[in-house]
């Protein structure tokens, strides 16, 4: 066997071992969520449940259903709004020379890197003063605004690849700002919309800091409810684990079905230029 082949066999074995290590937390979560509370014991933590005990999922569902609903309303509306605005911004920044356009993009993009702790107190005050504090509309607004940098950046890099000549040609044919957007840009926007929506949905669904500081209990998304449950000391572990599965399910489904687009969103942030 050549050295190249030995290396590849070794890599194959290592990959299997590492995949097992990476799946350990998933295994532990699933088996613990299926155990009866009495069966959960540190010494048998690694053993499969003697009998699948689905009741924890029923309890978790009952407890988390309102929060899951909040998360869906929040994530879907904030995703769509930030994607639509990002698409328009990306169109303007890639196809029009507007005054200050050169500095606008870095200044917009900077907004996605700031630690949100540095805006949290004024944001909290602002939400109180505008009576948006506590409810979902306020949280949606916050996620739309702080989502704009990444959606604008992603759409702009996609639209930059549409040749300017096409835009000029439409322009000569008499299409205006909106005409070009509707008949040229929008029909080409399928893949970027998918990438941006998957990215935003995952981020917003998983977000915690804004959710925990800006919502009242009735509007809390699933991440806050899960953290509150798991933070309590008295609960046995089957419930937090079942709750984790419920909280992870939507993003998992998106990831498994559309993983390719998820990775593209992931790479676009760091590999541009």
């Amino acid at each position, binding site marked *: 066997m050549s050295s190249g082949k030995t290396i590849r066999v070794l890599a194959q074995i290592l990959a299997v071992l590492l995949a097992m290590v990476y799946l350990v937390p998933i295994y*532990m979560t699933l088996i613990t969520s299926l155990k009866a509370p009495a069966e959960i014991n540190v010494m048998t933590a690694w053993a499969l449940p003697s009998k699948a005990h689905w009741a924890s999922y029923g309890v978790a569902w009952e407890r988390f259903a309102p929060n899951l609903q909040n998360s869906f309303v929040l994530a879907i509306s904030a995703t769509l709004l930030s994607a639509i605005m990002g698409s328009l911004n990306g169109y303007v920044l890639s196809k029009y020379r507007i005054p200050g356009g050169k500095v606008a993009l870095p200044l917009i993009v900077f907004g996605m890197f700031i630690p949100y702790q540095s805006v949290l107190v004024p944001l909290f005050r602002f939400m109180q003063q505008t009576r948006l504090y506590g409810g979902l509309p306020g949280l949606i607004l916050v996620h739309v605004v702080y989502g704009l940098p990444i959606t604008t950046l992603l759409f702009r890099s996609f639209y930059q690849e549409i040749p300017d000549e096409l835009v000029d040609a439409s322009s000569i044919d008499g299409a205006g700002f909106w005409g070009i957007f509707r008949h040229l840009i929008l029909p080409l926007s399928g893949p970027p919309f998918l990438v941006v929506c998957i990215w935003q949905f995952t981020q917003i669904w998983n977000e915690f800091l804004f959710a925990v500081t800006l919502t009242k209990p009735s509007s809390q998304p699933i991440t806050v409810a899960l953290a509150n449950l798991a933070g309590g000391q008295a609960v046995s572990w089957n419930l937090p684990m079942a709750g984790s599965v419920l909280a992870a399910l939507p993003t998992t489904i998106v990831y498994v079905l559309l993983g390719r687009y998820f990775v593209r969103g992931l790479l676009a942030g760091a590999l541009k230029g």
Partner: protein
Amino acid sequence: MHTRREHLAAIVTILPSIILLGIFVYGFIANSIYMSTTDWGQTAAMSLDPQIESVGLDNYRDLFTGFLNVRFRQDLVNMFFFTLLFVGLSLLVGLVLATIIDQLFWGETFFRTVFLYPMSLSMVVTGTIWRWILQPRGGINVLPTLIGLPPGKFLWLSSRDQRLVFDWSHLLHYACWVLLVVLAISAYSQWRQGKKGRLAWHLVICGVLAGLIASRVLTRLRLLPYPEMHGFNDALWGVVIAAVWQMSGYTMALYLAGLRTIPRELREAARVDGGSELQIYRYVDLPLLKPITASAIVILGHIALKIFDLIFAISSPDHYPTSMPAVTMFLKAFRGNELAVGSAIGVILFFIVSLLIVPYLIVSFRREE
């Protein structure tokens, strides 16, 4: 090209976003900076028309040297070590994973999906899961008993042990050490690349720093009137493991994309010249991955510096050994109503993260033009 009318339409279209971000990012940061120089807190925080007085930089001075803010200083130390370990290990693990996947006979998509999967989870979910696995007498620690060994004793999240303990009042002295190490590494790479001019400057500054350290003059400049010990908390290992599990798939994806852009001919040429697989990896692949490492450090670094949700879920915001500035900010501002102090911590975080992000953005956008 475009008519005036269209330009106007373009400006009107983007204006709402510009205004929103102007207020929510720049306006609010400015407001935080202003608030951090006041005594806004406690009862005044709740009143509609609070009596706020300016206190200058007192909040900052208190955070760095005040008797009551010892927790914040340990937070900074935790953040430093966590960032170092998390970024370093994520890069290393991600590189190993990408290298392995690049060599596979079969199952590439499957393995990529498995390693990247934790990225799609919430840090709250990750924290909850690992909190269970890292229980003092459960999960990882019972693993050795499965093959007949005594159970592990390490307290992954709750250990109170500290290593690398140092006196905070000598902070500047140790800061010089850190700077010296960074500059020495940078000088070494300048020397490797044969950039003589820059190397000279690096060596001069290194010399000055070494002199400062050797003379111990900075240890006499005491920040605190009493010794206050801080160090690396062993309890951070649990957080680091969970965070690396979550984010190493990201570096893997970056490196894998990088490896795939290396032209086949380049490797072939190296092979024809008699290079072994290991040499090709070392001298062809690795150097070409350097720019990816640079952006990965920035992206992971800024995630590490503002880590909040993972800490919240994996231990508890009140758990001292794993606390971070972002967590203490939340407690101060939203549980203790010390809004001015909370703002000050937020502003400190903002400046630390900006040190990392601003050069990155400048370089990225310059390259684009």
